[in-house]
């Protein structure tokens, strides 16, 4: 009986080959689809972050070079800055170890006093230990009114 079996397994007929292939593909396909859909079913739906434009003030209140602190929707401190060319908003949290950065109007840069970190007027890390630019908020100006896009709470 063993001999017979070995023979058939060695001399796989075309018919058997096609049948085995079809069965394997069917099985893998259906079980694979089932597994994928089951995972999709279990993964919790991500809430898409909604942003709202919040009125932060008027252009007249923010002359070139000046900055103003505000609190974003999550309660984190942030800075609204007029760098001379445009209005920008950055998180005050230093990307190095989370100290609060200051705006230096005369040099037009952000300075972190904890470890001597510097960011330029566009939030880019230019000197010191900070590994990446400051987190930025989207700012829009409509009829001289400044709006900052904040995450909906």
């Amino acid at each position, binding site marked *: 009986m063993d001999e017979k079996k070995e023979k058939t397994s060695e001399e796989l007929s075309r018919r058997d080959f096609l049948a085995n292939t079809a069965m394997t593909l069917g099985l893998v396909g259906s079980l694979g689809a*089932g597994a994928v*859909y*089951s995972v*999709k*079913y*279990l*993964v919790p*739906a991500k809430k898409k972050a909604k942003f709202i434009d919040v009125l932060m003030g008027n252009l007249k209140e923010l002359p070139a070079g000046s900055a103003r602190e505000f609190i974003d929707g999550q309660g984190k401190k942030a800075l609204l800055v007029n760098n001379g060319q445009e209005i920008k908003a950055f998180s005050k949290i230093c990307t190095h170890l989370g100290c609060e950065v200051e705006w230096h109007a005369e040099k037009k840069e952000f300075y972190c006093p904890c470890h001597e970190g510097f960011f330029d007027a566009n939030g880019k890390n230019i000197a010191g230990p900070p590994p990446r630019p400051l987190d930025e908020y989207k700012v829009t100006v409509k009829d001289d009114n400044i709006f900052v896009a904040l995450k909906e709470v």
Partner: protein
Amino acid sequence: MEEVKKETGWIDKSLPVDWGKVKEEAIGEILPQHMKLWWYCLGGVPALMFMLLVGTGMLLAFYYVPHPDKAYESVAHITNDIPYGWWLRSLHRWGAEIMVVTVSLHAIRVFATGAYRHPREVCWISGALLLLLTFGLGFTGYSLVYTQQSYWAMTIGTGIAGKTPIIGSFISRFMMGGEAIGPDTLNRFFIIHAAILPVLLFLLIIFHIIVIRLHGVAEHVVGMQREIVRGLSRGDE
């Protein structure tokens, strides 16, 4: 069987199983000719459906809430909001339907061809219990959706059980978890449906299959008897 493998890997050493023999036992059984007809193999379909139902049932239990105020809502949530929830629920629902139908057809076939007779009484009795467990699962599952139909199915089901002589009132009170259908009823039905009956069903299926394999499938009693190749069947002489 004196085949000794020279090269044995970690798996063969730590898990010394003769896989060839396992394969031989699992799929190598020699069967009489009439088993080529699909209506003689209907017992396998409910077993397959049971596996499907365990899988999909586990997934449905992730979102189902067995509380009168939440049950219907959670089912609607699964069907309408959760990705592929409708798909899994449909698989569960139709799988259950197919399981009940095929297990009934299987029982009818076994009865009609006399395959239940001596020496296969144990197989028949365990099969009858499997049929009852399947109906129990169907009934409890139907009730869990908690639609109007579910509610009245529960009412009727517990009512029928309550008409059993002597122990009837006890059974119906036990099923409802009180004097009337309430929050405890749904909880009970959920535990019975999702934990107790499946485990019993699983164990009994294993037992049922072991008994079948011990006896070999029954010889055909009428009609096809002559077509069976002699010596191929392990059935009783």
